[in-house]
């Protein structure tokens, strides 16, 4: 058997000599591999992006709907409390448990924006600040009110005129300074604002949140009033235990962990506010419990356990639905790529059969000079592998170039929306390596039968060809 170096030299010579044949054979493989890598990278990119928005190893436990209330679109929350959270925390495969608590009473938000006073009934909830520890706003998303407890209050008020420090507000009930309540909103909310609200009212769209905050003049300008216990809907505050009061909040930015529609604040604030306006039960009942599992494989068993053992259920996961759709679409495109590459492999086989026929005399000569059947097989398979390698690399380059072009076009022509990812493609090393292996493998497959035919050719008859 020839040494790899000699084989490579001989194959190289043949490749240069048969450039046209090589190019024709490689063309289909280039297209197929480019499509394969392009669609796989696109699917992985989109999948990663979707799962970042809707993680599928993260589920949300909610109370089951009751028939009457459920028909009104509301959910019973009676069963979600610390005892349930503790049980969930002890279950196998559970990595983290994060209870969420809705603001269960009316609140009115007021925000001055572009000389427009925006008033809206606030929907919101609270989460544990540790849940956001790994996010950019994590350091500022704290329960400042709890931290202020026991410390001397800073006085403020109109007379004598005393101002609070930056990011603080004056509570007019007792003329003391308090840190503004940190708030986060979801990308979805900003998206709704951009596509629905801003458009219809002629307001500017919000692109990157960080830029938006800087444009506004920093975090100190990102404040909004929250009138707790107040609402624009009449006669809905009669059962509240406390009088309306005004607090101030500061909008820190966007988080995927924020409530989809509304604002999210540290859970301590919501507990205190719910106790103040509705009593102890409202302050100890969660609207949902977010559960981070060890992996997506845990979702099924966990859902079953939650339903059977706790009488609760999981919120429908959009991530799971998206992932399934992406999987099916990816499968479809991969099937197309597979068909292209298969047809190309058949084309390669056809071309190589022609080559074997045209090069009979050469095959006979090589046999006369001492090439064994294995050597001849190696030469033809080497040529096929070289086509696969070159076509794979070119296909890879074509896929990456097309992906880059698509990203550039998307950046240029799509509006700068918070949902838009930095890249739609994930050109992972294993996708590129897989494409290359796939390419070489299919070319070898296409070259196999012609190589066998060439190896089995009787040297004397091959040499006799005119």
């Amino acid at each position, binding site marked *: 058997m020839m040494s790899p*170096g*000699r084989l490579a030299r001989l194959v190289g*010579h043949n490749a240069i000599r048969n450039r046209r044949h090589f190019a024709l054979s490689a063309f289909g493989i280039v297209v197929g591999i480019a499509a394969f890598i392009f669609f796989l990278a696109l699917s992985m990119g989109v999948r990663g992006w979707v799962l970042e928005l809707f993680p599928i190893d993260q589920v949300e436990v909610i109370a089951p709907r009751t028939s009457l209330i459920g028909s009104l679109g509301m959910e019973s929350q009676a069963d979600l409390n610390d005892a349930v959270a503790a049980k969930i925390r002890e279950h196998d495969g559970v990595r983290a448990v994060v209870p969420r608590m809705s603001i269960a009473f009316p609140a009115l938000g007021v925000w001055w924006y572009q000389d427009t006073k925006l008033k809206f009934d606030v929907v919101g909830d609270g989460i544990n600040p540790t849940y956001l520890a790994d996010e950019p706003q994590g350091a500022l998303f704290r329960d400042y009110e709890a931290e202020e407890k026991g410390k001397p209050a800073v006085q403020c008020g109109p007379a004598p005129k005393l101002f609070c420090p930056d990011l603080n507000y004056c509570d007019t009930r007792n003329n003391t300074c308090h840190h503004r309540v940190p708030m986060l909103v979801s990308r979805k909310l900003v998206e709704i604002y951009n596509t629905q609200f801003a458009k219809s009212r002629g307001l500017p769209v919000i692109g990157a949140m960080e830029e938006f905050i800087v444009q506004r003049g920093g975090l100190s300008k990102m404040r909004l009033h929250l009138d707790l216990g107040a609402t624009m809907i009449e006669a809905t505050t009669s059962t509240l235990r406390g009088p309306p009061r005004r607090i101030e909040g500061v909008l820190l930015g966007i988080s995927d962990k924020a409530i989809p529609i509304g604002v999210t604040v540290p859970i301590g604030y919501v507990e205190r506010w719910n106790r103040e306006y509705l009593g102890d039960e409202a302050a100890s009942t969660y609207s949902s419990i977010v559960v981070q599992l060890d992996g997506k494989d845990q979702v099924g068993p966990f859902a079953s356990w939650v339903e059977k053992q706790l009488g609760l259920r999981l919120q429908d996961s959009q991530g799971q639905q998206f992932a399934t759709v992406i999987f099916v679409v990816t499968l479809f495109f991969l099937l197309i790529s597979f068909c292209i590459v298969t047809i190309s492999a058949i084309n390669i086989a056809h071309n190589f059969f022609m080559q074997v026929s045209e090069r009979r005399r050469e095959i006979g000569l090589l046999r006369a000079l*001492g*090439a*064994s059947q294995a050597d001849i097989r190696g030469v033809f398979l080497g040529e096929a592998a070289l086509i696969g390698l070159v076509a794979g690399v070119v296909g890879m380059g074509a896929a990456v170039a097309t992906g880059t072009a698509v990203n550039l076009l998307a950046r240029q022509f799509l509006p700068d929306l918070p949902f838009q990812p930095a890249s739609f493609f994930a050109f992972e090393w294993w996708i590129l390596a897989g494409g290359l292996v796939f390419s070489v493998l299919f070319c070898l497959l296409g070259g196999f039968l012609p190589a066998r035919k060439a190896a089995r050719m*009787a*040297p004397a008859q091959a*040499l006799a060809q005119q």
Partner: protein
Amino acid sequence: MAIQSPNPVVRLRDVHKAYGSGAGRTPVLRGVSLEVQSGEVVALVGQSGSGKSTLLNIVGGLDDADSGGVEVLGVDYAVARDAALSRLRNERIGFVFQFFNLLDHMDCLANVILPASFARETRGGPRGAIERGRAVLDRVGLTELAHRRPSELSGGQKQRVAIARALFHSPELLLCDEPTGNLDTDTGREVIELFTDINRKDGVTLLIVTHEERVSSTAGRVIRISDGCILDGDGQAEARAEERSA
């Protein structure tokens, strides 16, 4: 008649070969027996289609005999596997063809060292192969044409390159199929002189298929073939072969 030796370079015993099948089956060799001793120059002569080229191919392991025994340089073709036969052709047998069979996409030197591609081991590696290639090109008087393409050479020069290629691994047996069949008289004479020189200086055994008198006249022994049988000195097919075919 050559002297019988216990270890001849070529030994054929009752070799039969036919092409085609059924009613279209055409016998090409009919019970050929032959021995060639080391250092001999043997010319195989006969009409076209007499079976001389087939005989040469069988000796070179390029074709299989249907029956009979073939032993070349001590290798019994009946038991040798493809790898062993390939190694024999690569290291101990050289071939020279009527139509030169040079690869036009390679220069002369690359053509000459082509057998090194299939050698189990090459002395001195690629550099050593190139040095030996230059040496054999020098031997045939074509040093200056080492980097020319075969298409740029004359017929005689092409055949000299082909001979250099055949000599690359210093073979013990040189099998030549109509080596002057495609050359003019003068060039043919030069090639014949080269063969004579190779035989005299290197002791290489030559088996030359030819139908040209000027080639056969230089051979130490002439074997005539007709209708697949070796003829004796009187132009009659060997009695044994005739008896067997009867």
